[in-house]
């Protein structure tokens, strides 16, 4: 595998809103920045495909700023190892990039939380963001029946997007309680922009049932999804559908931060007021430091970019906005806290680890993540526990830790030296 060296003053991992905002602030000061992302294009998940067609004035403004900036983008590159401090390796389509840096900003974003229930492994049961990404990247959903389920504001955004693309969204099943959502609405009164955004979304989705305190207990079908069973207020009922888009809010992507030895606290990268991690010269911004939404990611990215280039007063000027966005983040996470009934969804034969087909029954008797890995191979497949690890943290309260390089499966040739 051939190797290519890329040196950067500031290296940014992740081309979502936080990474882009950081890069913009870095190059604005005349310092060089490279942004590495494993997706084929920039924007991360929330701004996927929006470089060409921005859906909001805010996205348009940011992409305009980025277009005018001299940022070195390396797309389709997946960071998998740190051979020494100040150097990362990324696997690209045809070669391996040796990324050296003075300062590093981790903007690795978040993924959906998936929870096991009977039938969740059936084809056409996907993440909410998963189905949206599929449609954004070329799949025509018009005329298809979709149930959107799980938890979090993403469900509304996905339902709205799919409806505009011609899907028939039969229902949105939100597991959070009515009381929680009511408090969330009250909490938004102090944030005019967010309240009006939520209001507009709900108005556009007028024809779609928003079932509160409702969740999927099973998906049914032969070889692919045919219907789902929903539960609300103790009552169960079946709904026929082509697709189930189901995700339970978001969890930060921490693997790279863990590999670098950054302290993790409450399931997020721990940072100081300048977004610096516990490791010198390594910063983190956006959802990797805790789920808080787009605005928080942007302002954290800006602060990280400013701090990494020594522009302390400018960074400090953004603290009050960050505080406000963090309050929204806390409100968000309290509102969409998972109800304990979701722990009872898997049956004995329900698969929990999808890579190695490990059932709930086989895991239930283990006392820890480590023991489960040793005895059942849970979390030892290609996703390296990214899906099941998050699930067992919730199901069993296990502490899921210990990443090992490579943090992603790579080609054998990428691991060795010169070949």
């Amino acid at each position, binding site marked *: 595998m051939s190797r290519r060296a890329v040196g950067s003053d500031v290296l940014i991992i992740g081309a979502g809103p936080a990474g882009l905002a950081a890069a913009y602030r870095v190059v604005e000061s005349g310092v060089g920045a490279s942004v590495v992302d494993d997706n084929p294009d920039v924007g991360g998940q929330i701004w996927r495909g929006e470089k060409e067609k921005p859906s909001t004035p805010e996205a348009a403004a940011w992409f305009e700023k980025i277009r005018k900036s001299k940022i070195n983008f390396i797309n389709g590159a997946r960071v998998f190892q740190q051979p020494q401090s100040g150097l990362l390796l990324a696997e690209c389509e045809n070669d391996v990039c040796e990324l050296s840096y003075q300062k590093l900003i981790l903007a690795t974003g978040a*993924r959906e939380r*998936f929870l096991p229930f009977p039938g969740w492994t*059936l*084809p056409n049961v996907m993440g909410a963001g998963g189905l949206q990404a599929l449609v954004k990247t*070329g799949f025509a959903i018009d005329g298809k029946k979709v149930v959107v389920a799980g938890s979090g504001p993403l469900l509304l955004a996905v339902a709205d997007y799919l409806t505009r693309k011609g899907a028939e969204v039969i229902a949105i099943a939100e597991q959070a309680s009515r009381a929680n959502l009511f408090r969330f609405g009250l909490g938004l009164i102090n944030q005019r922009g967010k309240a009006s955004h939520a209001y507009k979304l709900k108005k556009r989705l007028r024809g779609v049932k928003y079932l509160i305190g409702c969740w999927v207990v099973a998906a049914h079908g032969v070889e692919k999804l045919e219907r789902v069973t929903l539960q609300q207020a103790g009552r169960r009922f079946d709904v026929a559908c082509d697709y189930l888009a189901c995700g339970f809010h978001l969890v930060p992507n921490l693997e790279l931060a863990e590999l670098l030895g950054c302290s993790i606290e409450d399931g997020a990268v721990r940072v100081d007021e300048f977004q610096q991690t516990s490791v010198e010269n390594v910063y983190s911004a956006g959802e990797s430091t805790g789920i808080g939404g787009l605005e928080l990611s942007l302002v954290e990215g800006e602060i990280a970019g400013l701090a990494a280039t020594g522009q302390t007063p400018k960074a400090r000027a953004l603290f009050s906005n960050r505080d406000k966005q963090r309050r929204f983040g806390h409100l968000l996470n309290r509102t969409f806290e998972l109800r304990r009934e979701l722990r009872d969804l898997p049956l004995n034969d329900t698969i929990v680890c999808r890579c190695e087909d490990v059932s709930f029954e086989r895991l239930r008797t283990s006392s820890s993540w480590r023991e489960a890995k040793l005895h059942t191979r849970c979390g030892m497949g290609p*996703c390296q526990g990214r899906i099941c690890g998050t699930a067992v943290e919730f199901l069993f309260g296990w502490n899921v830790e210990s990443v090992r390089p490579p943090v992603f499966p790579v080609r054998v040739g990428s691991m060795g030296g010169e070949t």
Partner: protein
Amino acid sequence: MPEEVVVVVDGVLVRMPVGSMVSAAIMTAGVSSFRRSVSGEARGLLCGMGICFECRVTIDLQPHCRSCQTVCQNGMDIRTCE
């Protein structure tokens, strides 16, 4: 009409808009089972963002490619469940 690319999914020609992902082409071909799990279950796309590895297929004879992270190129030979 937007520009198109033509790929082959399990021997069937599929036309997709330029820039589409292989995962979208597979679904457009009417295939929902991308791979078989270690115990033989049908599996399809889950996360859509390169994390879960459920959507891996064979592309131009290279196995284990994540179809949700691979952009369609003209003439690509895509095979599911190999």
